[in-house]
């Protein structure tokens, strides 16, 4: 993605690497970390699935948002409103 809006504070010190690399449609596709020394594909799959299942549980939590979460929802909504107002 394009990070050229970054200021000079260092927030996007990692901007010279792509922050959104190829995202496969296949849910079972392995993260890129499998090419790291000392990591097996099976271990990566187990950890990936573990984190993912926990995140899915959180995502599907039916409880109403906390005030902090609502602030985040409102901010995202404003962001998307500006995003989608620009085209289409």
């Amino acid at each position: 993605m394009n990070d050229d809006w970054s200021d000079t504070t260092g927030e996007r010190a990692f901007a010279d690497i792509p922050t959104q690399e190829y995202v496969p449609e296949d849910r079972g596709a392995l993260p890129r970390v499998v090419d790291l020394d000392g990591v097996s594909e099976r271990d990566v799959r187990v950890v990936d699935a573990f984190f993912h299942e926990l995140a899915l549980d959180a995502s599907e939590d039916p409880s109403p948002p906390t005030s902090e979460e609502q602030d985040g929802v409102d901010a995202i909504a404003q962001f998307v409103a500006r995003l989608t107002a620009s085209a289409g």
Partner: protein
Amino acid sequence: MADERDDEPLGGASRSPDVLAAFRAQATPALYLAAQRFARQWAKLPRRAGRRVDHLYPRELVQDALADTWNGTLAWDPARRSLLDHVRNAIRWRAWNDARHAKRFPHVAWNTAANDETSVRIEVEVHETQASQADAAPLILVGLIVTLAAELRRLAEHDDEAQAILDCWADSIVERDDVMARTHFTAAQYKAARRRLLYLVKHLPPELREAASDILRSAS
């Protein structure tokens, strides 16, 4: 953070009208909440891998996924999956990517770095980190993966059903129906075994339990 770009045009949609229409229809506050909760859990991975993660990082993950989808940077086929599933997948990959690059490219929040004295210190730290670890493997991430996988297997060794699910995950069988087909579990068996497996974080060693302590609350 992405929501600080108040004055910038954010669009540039290159998608088909059908995709844009589907995006607009599915981009709701309910999706934002679900995606934000999902991102908060995944944010723990890069944080534990050594990346500086501030409280706005999960929101940034969501906004980046939505923006990249709207702009066409991330391909999305509404006929194949919902926008929420697509965003979740993008967040998952971004978290792994950030974890992989955690030590080489530490995250510094803009509002923290804006403080003059702190800014200088952090800037120096960033450069030192990049210089000293530019060629180093993200050993913390490797250690986290190896240790967590081993601990989960150890803790599940007396629970045949939980172990069966771990085996499925290791073989890239992750969807509920696929796991049930392979294990011949009933829906109730699968649900209970999955729940027990997620609760294993309670029994992880202290250094891993800390990493999972917040996650645990979501599984209760």
